[in-house]
């Protein structure tokens, strides 16, 4: 590792003491009289906020588990019987496909993100980044059909692929199909998250690099790679969790029950057999497996935290040669083609529908409004949770000694909270339904459930966008705030908000996009009270109205694109 590469991290932790812990305690009435005694830990209000956020998440997940366990405790036979040979094959396949999907999503994303970060100004760049958020908002079946429209037996590329392969193109059913669809979903996500990490590399490092005459290659090795590597475990962990819980894609493109995931087994145990004990056992297995993999990822990724950098609007000083520019352009084009292809197919089939009629339908309008309102509320809650967790994590990190072990709480605010992703929404929905079924009107709770669950599920993504920025801002401001006694609400209003507006609006838009495409939670609560756009889409698909469904998918994508544009605009106001 070169001195330049480590300067940011090491310099940061040496120059800025790791323990400006006692930032917040009530100001003493007058100096020289009562001051906090030594034994009392002055508690940072940020940690309190984080504990509250974690508590809320724990109640959401724990409550669901309690509900299911209470219901299922009488009959554990299903839970025990679940652990048969088939389950182990499923578990193996689940891990295998998730690992491959993660690999194929994350590695190319590293290079696409790097290419994008090296060329901060070219026409269409903003649009590409916005397009990269759209897959998140698409229901899995829409994405699967989009992928098949290209690579399927009857896809646009089938003719070409038949010529290449020499026989009739068999489509991409099986592991390859699962991988293609997962990469379609996750490559753009990973690219965006990596780009955030690269944007946090301080300008100084680039200046230094250019001053030292670093080549693009050296720049990558010494500047970009350390930044990417720091965010790699987090991003890979996120993608892995998304793939491990994949359901519709695995079943539809997998070609048969050979390709099945634990999530399917969980779904089956709740939907068909209603065996809560089994659902809980399988969910715990899923969490344990994920935990094991994430632990390995963390080891690969060096010190994930404490590497906060000054988040200065990046200016690139390394001038790329013509060859490198061409390579970057090719990389971006390739990434774009891969992501935009299925999207284009979705657009084309959407255009075949009667869009004007659809947009004019009262049901569509009200579903769109419902979706937007719910997604907006979920995103708001999500951003609040995220900010609380990011603040608490940073405060805890500052509080512990430089070399000290991370506390359980810090782990929870860090990676721990991400594990909500591997708790299937249907488990949360069913658990709470069981708990609340005798308490008044359960249907009225459906919107509340949708908002909370979506907020919590989007939180790990939002955290990726917010945390680096928060840590960087804290790196600069921590001592000053502590010195001047700026804390609590004042600090949030005067110091954090202006600096974090951009990442927060990115997080907000991400959370909204994710919530827009969600279908999971409503299943048991009854959907009459909450008719969302994706719900309507599936309903039309289920009623032979495939063209309408395609039109709605297009509508959903357009809404998502508009949201991303809005987020960019909101964030730009203060970007310096």
């Amino acid at each position, binding site marked *: 590792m070169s001195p330049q590469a480590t300067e940011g991290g090491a310099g940061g932790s040496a120059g800025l003491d790791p323990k400006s812990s006692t930032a917040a305690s009530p100001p003493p009435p007058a*100096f*020289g009289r009562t001051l906090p005694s030594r034994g009392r830990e002055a508690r940072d209000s940020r940690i309190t906020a984080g504990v509250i956020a974690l508590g809320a998440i724990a109640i959401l997940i724990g409550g669901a588990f309690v509900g299911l366990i209470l219901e299922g405790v009488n009959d554990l036979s299903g839970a025990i019987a679940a652990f048969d040979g088939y389950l182990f094959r499923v578990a193996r396949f689940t891990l295998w496909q998730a690992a491959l999907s993660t690999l194929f999503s994350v590695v190319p994303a590293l290079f696409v993100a790097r290419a994008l970060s090296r060329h901060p100004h070219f026409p269409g760049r903003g649009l590409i980044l916005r397009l990269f958020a759209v897959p998140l908002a698409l229901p899995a079946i829409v994405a699967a059909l989009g992928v098949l429209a290209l690579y399927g037996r009857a896809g646009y590329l089938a003719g070409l692929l038949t010529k290449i392969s020499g026989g009739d193109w068999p489509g991409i059913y099986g592991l390859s199909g699962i991988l293609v669809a997962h990469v379609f979903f996750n490559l753009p996500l990973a690219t965006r998250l990596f780009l955030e990490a690269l944007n946090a590399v301080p300008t100084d490092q680039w200046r230094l690099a250019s001053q030292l005459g670093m080549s693009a290659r050296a720049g990558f090795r010494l500047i970009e790679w350390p930044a990417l590597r720091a965010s790699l475990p987090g991003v890979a962990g996120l993608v892995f969790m998304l793939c491990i819980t994949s359901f519709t894609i695995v079943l539809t493109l997998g070609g048969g029950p050979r390709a099945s995931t634990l999530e399917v087994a969980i779904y089956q145990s709740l939907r068909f057999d209603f065996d809560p004990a089994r659902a809980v056992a399988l969910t715990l297995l899923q969490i344990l497996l994920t935990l094991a993999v994430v632990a390995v990822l963390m080891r690969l990724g060096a010190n994930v935290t404490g590497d906060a950098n000054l988040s200065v609007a990046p200016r690139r000083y390394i001038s790329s040669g013509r060859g490198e520019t061409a390579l970057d352009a090719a990389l971006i084009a390739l990434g774009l083609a891969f992501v935009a292809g299925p999207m284009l197919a979705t657009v084309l089939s959407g255009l075949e529908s009667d869009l004007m009629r659809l947009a004019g339908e009262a049901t569509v309008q009200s579903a769109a409004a419902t979706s937007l309102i719910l997604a907006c509320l979920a995103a708001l809650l999500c951003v609040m949770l995220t900010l609380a967790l990011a603040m608490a994590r940073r405060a805890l990190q500052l509080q512990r000694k430089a070399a000290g072990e991370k506390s359980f709480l810090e782990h929870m605010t860090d990676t721990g909270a991400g594990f909500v992703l591997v708790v299937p929404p249907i488990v949360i929905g069913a658990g709470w339904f069981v708990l609340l079924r005798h308490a008044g009107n359960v249907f009225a709770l459906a919107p509340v459930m949708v908002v909370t669950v979506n907020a919590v599920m989007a939180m790990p993504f939002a955290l990726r966008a917010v945390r680096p920025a928060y840590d960087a801002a804290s790196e*600069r401001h921590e001592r*000053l705030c502590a010195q001047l006694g700026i804390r609590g609400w004042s600090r949030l209003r005067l110091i954090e908000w202006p600096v974090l507006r951009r990442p927060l609006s990115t997080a907000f838009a991400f959370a909204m996009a994710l919530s827009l495409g969600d279908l999971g939670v409503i299943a048991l609560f009854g959907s009459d009270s909450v008719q969302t756009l994706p719900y309507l889409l599936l309903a039309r698909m289920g009623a032979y109205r495939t063209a309408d469904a395609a039109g709605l998918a297009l509508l959903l994508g357009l809404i998502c694109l508009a949201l991303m544009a809005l987020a960019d605009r909101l964030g730009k106001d203060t970007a310096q």
Partner: protein
Amino acid sequence: MNSPMRPGGVDIRLEEVTFTYEDMRMRFDATIEAGQITSVMGASGAGKSTFLNLVAGFETATSGRVLIGGADVTAAPPSARPISMVFQENNLFAHLTVEQNVGLGRSPALKLAEADRTDIADALGRTGLAGKERRLPRELSGGERQRVAIARVLVRDRPVLLLDEPFASLGPALREDMVDLVMSVHRERGMTVVFVTHQPEDARRIGGNLLFLEQGKVIAAGKTEEFFGKNGPEAFRNYIGTGNAEPQSQEFARKPT
């Protein structure tokens, strides 16, 4: 917190304060006189910043006591100590104007009354920043930014001022001006000033007292002029070099923020 402190400074005592940073064990035992300027010098890694951080409250002593004006502040958070501090960099919030940055010294929530605004305007005038109230830090030079920090010190009006190599990145002439500004602020308010510096000429210009640190300990303390005299401590003379013309501090050309 808005009530102005009584004029004059208070003394600072570190009683057998120990602290471990990574592998380095430090132990400070020192008294800083009330109302005086005390320079703190020492080689890189000698513990100057840690010393200051222990006084400011950014580090908490493993054992021993820190007393400011006779009150035990060992465990008090930074903002609860009667201290203003100027850092080498990152003294200002980049997104707030000069006026707001200074105003934070009066109210951490930026709730400013008319009287506060007058004080802020006075402080800005006093530090030569009149007319730049609405500027953002990025529109200021490095020297001006540190002036904003000193204007905030004036508005904050605490009996102790800690300066952590605040002018290290400024040129010699500018640095002299800034040192003079600190001295005149000190003359006016009479607070206790602790000034960490690499530059022997700064310490010399200031006069007052000097603490010399080596390997996490205060190994010499006394009047600055005595340090620079013929009978100054040997370690100190080695540090500044006999000729005293090429101070070691050139090794770090820190960039301006």
